[in-house]
Structures are given as structure tokens and as C-alpha cells.
């Protein structure tokens, strides 16, 4: 399973004040071609995923469930667009399934990361801002959740809810937030002592507005970066769950279940393995690179030498 513990960014915002954040970041980012390339790649995948319906109907003329059992294990061929990437064990078009798989995998990744992010921010902000008993209680909850092997939680919860995409988003989204929460809490603890927060209180701004307008605005850029990596981790976790038979279920394709299925069928359809494998690999890699690249760009300590 993913070891999310080690992904917390190693710098804090306290020194970030002086930089013109986004302008400088963009300036730095433009020079980081690897990050730009990764971002473009990701964007391409997202666009392809969004266009899945259009492409499937107009270019490939197949849905992701259309079967052709008589001609299964069709080898990749240029003759028929639907079989550019070959066909699977019951004759479904691999490329169409990849497109819809992109939709599912990315939606699960981003969806769950969004929940992680939201929960992490809400809990972390409240912990750091209100401190006291709420902080103590949530610290306890977070430590306790961290102490249960994630695998076991996933297994039981997956058995509980059944492997639908929505359930999967909810499960993965509700399991990874403690890391985000602790990170946001740390940032909030230091930010809430800053004078601009005091100034807001003097003005009479209420707690919610202070948390969301003043503190969150300062935490958000970094949390987004953590989340970029989180998305990658979740896509990997989905594939691991598919491997265990608990991921997204057929006929709905996800890159994870396509890869798992293909890997078990290596000798009959070796071409089936490479596309979903590459899709996962490239996506996760790009998410990491974009996350790290953004962090570099946003980190005021990394001066141009």
C-alpha cells in the first residue's frame, strides 16, 4: 500500500510572505520544462477522458461493453480504429475501455483526493484554530485511525460498501485525510498566531471567516500540492484494490482493473497489459512531477542561484 506518511512537504509557509507568490511561481515554473511537460500530459489525459463518449461514438463506434466473443484477443491493428490497441478476452475494444478507464481512474483519484482535501482542511483548520479539547479529541482520532493498518480498513470497508466507484471514492477519500489534517493543523497553529489574524479579530471578523479567508488562503497552495501527489497515490491504491478483487468492477473499466485483468492473461493477450500499465505509470509520474514542480516554484527558499 501507499506510504502516504512520507509525502508531507518539508517546508512551511512562515517565510513565504515576501514573495509575490503566484507571479514568481509562474516565472519559475515556466523554466521547469519537465513540470510543464508533465502538466500538458495530464491535461491531455483529462481531455481524452472527457471526450470518451464523443470518441467512442464517432471514431471507434463501440461502447465499452460491446463484445465480440468469436473474435476475442484481437491483436492491435491499424485497420479498425476500435482495435488500435487490440481487443480483450471477450472482444471488447481496448482503446474505448482505456478512455472510459481514464474517466473512472481520474474521477476516483481526483474525487477521493478532493474529499481528503476537504476533510483534511476542515478538520485541520478547526484543530489548529480552536485548539483545546477539540484538538485533543481529533488528535486522538487521527492517531487511532493511523494506527489501524490501512489495508485492513480498506478491506473491511470495501466488503461493507461494495465496489462501486462512488463507494470507492468515499472509502479512499475518508481514509487518507488524517495526514492532510495534521499538516493543515500545523500550518494553522503557526498562522493563527500571526498578526494579520489578530488584526482580523480586532476588526471583528468572525472565526469562520478568519479560518477560511485569512488562514486557509495561506495554506491552500501547499495543500493543493500535497493533493496532487495524493491523487497519484489513490490511483495506485485503486489498482492495488483491483488486484485484490476489491476495486472498480466490470463492466465499468478502470486502469487498475484493466491492468489486473490483463496481467492475469499475459500469455494470451500481452498487448492488453501495456496500455493500462503505461496510463497509470505516466499519470502518477506526471502528478508527482507537477506536485514537486509546483512546490519548487512556490517555495520562496529556493532562490535562483
Amino acid at each position, binding site marked *: *500500500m*501507499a*506510504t502516504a*506518511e*512520507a*509525502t*508531507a*512537504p*518539508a*517546508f512551511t509557509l512562515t517565510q513565504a510572505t515576501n514573495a509575490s507568490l503566484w507571479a514568481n511561481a509562474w516565472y519559475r515554473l515556466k*523554466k*521547469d*520544462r*519537465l513540470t510543464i511537460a508533465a502538466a500538458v500530459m495530464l491535461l491531455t489525459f483529462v481531455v481524452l477522458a472527457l471526450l470518451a463518449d464523443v470518441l467512442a461514438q464517432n471514431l471507434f463506434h463501440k461502447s465499452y461493453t460491446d463484445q465480440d466473443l468469436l473474435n476475442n484477443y484481437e491483436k492491435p491493428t491499424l485497420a479498425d480504429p476500435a482495435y488500435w490497441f487490440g481487443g480483450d478476452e471477450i472482444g471488447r475494444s481496448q482503446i474505448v475501455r482505456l478512455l472510459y478507464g481514464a474517466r473512472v481512474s481520474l474521477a476516483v483519484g481526483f474525487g477521493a483526493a478532493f474529499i481528503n482535501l476537504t476533510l483534511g482542511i476542515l478538520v485541520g483548520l478547526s484543530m489548529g484554530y480552536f485548539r483545546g479539547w477539540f484538538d485533543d479529541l481529533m488528535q*486522538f*482520532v487521527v*492517531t*487511532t*485511525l*493511523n*494506527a*489501524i*493498518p*490501512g*489495508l*485492513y*480498513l480498506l*478491506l*473491511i*470497508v470495501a*466488503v*461493507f460498501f461494495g465496489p462501486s466507484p462512488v463507494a470507492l471514492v468515499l472509502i479512499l477519500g475518508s481514509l487518507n485525510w488524517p495526514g492532510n489534517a495534521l499538516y493543515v493543523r500545523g500550518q494553522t497553529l503557526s498562522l493563527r498566531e500571526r498578526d494579520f489574524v489578530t488584526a482580523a479579530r480586532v476588526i471583528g471578523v468572525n472565526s469562520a471567516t478568519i479560518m477560511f479567508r485569512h488562514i486557509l488562503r495561506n495554506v491552500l497552495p501547499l495543500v493543493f500540492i500535497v493533493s496532487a501527489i495524493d491523487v*497519484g497515490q489513490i490511483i*495506485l491504491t485503486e*489498482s*492495488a484494490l483491483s*488486484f*485484490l478483487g476489491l476495486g472498480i468492477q466490470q463492466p465499468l473499466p478502470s486502469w*487498475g482493473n484493466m*491492468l*489486473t485483468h490483463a*496481467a492475469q492473461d*499475459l500469455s494470451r493477450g500481452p498487448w492488453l*497489459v501495456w496500455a493500462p*500499465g503505461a496510463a*497509470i*505509470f*505516466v499519470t*502518477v*509520474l506526471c502528478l*508527482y*512531477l507537477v506536485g*514537486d514542480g509546483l*512546490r*519548487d516554484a512556490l*517555495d520562496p*527558499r*529556493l*532562490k535562483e*542561484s
Partner: protein
Amino acid sequence: MGRFILRRLLQGIPTLFGVTLISFALWRFSPGDPVSRLVFGAQNVTAEEIAALRHFYGLDQSLPEQYLSWLGRIAHLDFGQSFLYHRPVTDMIMSALPNTLQLALVSLTIALVIGIPLGVIAARSRGSFIDQVVRVFGVAGHAIPSFWFGYLFILVFAVQFGLFPVGGMLTIGKSELDVADRLRHLVGPAIALSLAGIANYSRLMRTETLDILGQDFIRAAQAKGLRPRTVLYVHALRNALLPIITALGGLLAVLVSGSLVIEQVFAWPGMGRMIYEAAVSKDYPIVMAAVFISGFLLVISYIARDIAYGVADPRVRR
């Protein structure tokens, strides 16, 4: 120090309590139960047999009773007996845990030994081609789903070239003490398991090193005539120590509970497989014990981390 450790251990008790309560509730309220699985498919099982089985497994008690009697046994360090295996859970854990630890420690070492230099190298040449290659390489291993990496490793190194065994811990018939054979078996799973660590530590070290490079003391040290590389590694390492220790604290617990996927692919008889099988079979004595032990190890690893913090950074010491 002794009092500090004792106090932290006591603070861990509510956590362990919470962990076991959650696990128990999840186990009990999720669908499926061990007896119906056992009985399903076995022909001509009588109602009396089913009742006897429920009694044998203690499932005829009310839920609070079951939980309390489990807690009572835990107080005597008795984890009970596995439903599925009819043997003491303690024995089962004692046979799986050392295997998992062995794998975890080796892979951790690999991750540190490869990840740290990678991070420093990338930072030293920030923005250059080398940096970009290292950035991609550091993360690449982790971006491959681990089961797929395992399959590739087996196909290429075990089947194609015959360099390493496909799986297991020892060649059948070899002595337990045959270190060379043991190492050959460790290579595949340890590398697969270390990929996440390599990605994380190289990224961490890269950030830390970039930070160091921007600081004046590097120039000061160079002025003293120290070799730049020495200065960099020593200082970067020292500064990166705290975040790495932080990361290790959690990581160790994760590794201890085992990496199911890798254990599965490489036929490694560790904790992950044990917990997994127990979870799908609803063999709760094993699940509860494993959760309890990994929770306990997490508490311990946090304490160890805090002590290490004190050693690494005198400011933290109280």
C-alpha cells in the same frame, strides 16, 4: 527518559483501546461471518453443529460480551485462537512478524541508501538535465503499480534470466542459515517494497538540500577548506534528519503491518497476507491481534521517533 517513555506508553493506551474498538465494530458489522462461510458448501451440516460452532468460536455471546472477553484475554497477552487455523494467534504472529520485519528493514535500508544520494544529486544540479532524470527516476519506480512491478521482476529476472527465485523466503531444502540463499530471495520483494521509499526520500532530500544550498554556512564551510561534497552531504543529512525521522515513524508501522501486494506476488509469508486472509475469512482473533500489535508498534515507533528527535535536534529535548 524512563518516565518520558512510561508516560508516552500510558498515553498510547486510549489509542490502542480505540483501535481495537473500531476494528471490532467493523468486523462485526460488516457482512459475512466465519461460521456461515465454513458451513456454506459443506454438505449435510446439522443445525446442532452450527450452534456448537458458534459456541466454540464464542459467537453466541452478545457483542459487548465478546469484546469485553477479548479485552480480558488481551490483559493476559492471550490473543486467542484463530478460527481458520485452530492454532494460537500468538504463534501465527510470531511466525509472520519476523519475516515481515526482515523484509521491511532491508527495503528501508535500500530506500535510504538509494533515495538520499539521488535527492542530493538532483538538488546539486537543480534544473539541469541530471536533475530532471533523477526526478523522473526517483519517482518512476513508485509510479508503477507494485503488483505489476513484481510481475515484471519475476518475468525478467526469475524466468528469463534465472538470476533470482520467483518467490518464497528460502529454497526448499536449504538451511535456514544459508544467508546467500536468503538474500537471493529478498532481492525482488525488497526492491519492490523500497520503491515508495526511494521516491519519498529522494524528494525529501532534494528539497532539504536545495534549502541548504541557499544558506550561508555552506560557503562558510567551504571557506574553511572542507570539500564541498562532504559539506553538502553532512549538512543536508543533518537537516533532513528530522523530516526523515518523522516519515520513518509512520512508515515503520506501515511496513510492519506488511505490504500485502508484494507479499502476495513474491510468496513472502508475512503479516500482510495473514491479515488479508483473516480479514476476508472474518477470522477476527487474528485481525484483532494484528491490529492491536501494529497499533502498539505504531505507538512505540512514535516514541522512538520522539527520542530520535531529541537526539537529532537538542532544541526539542525537554
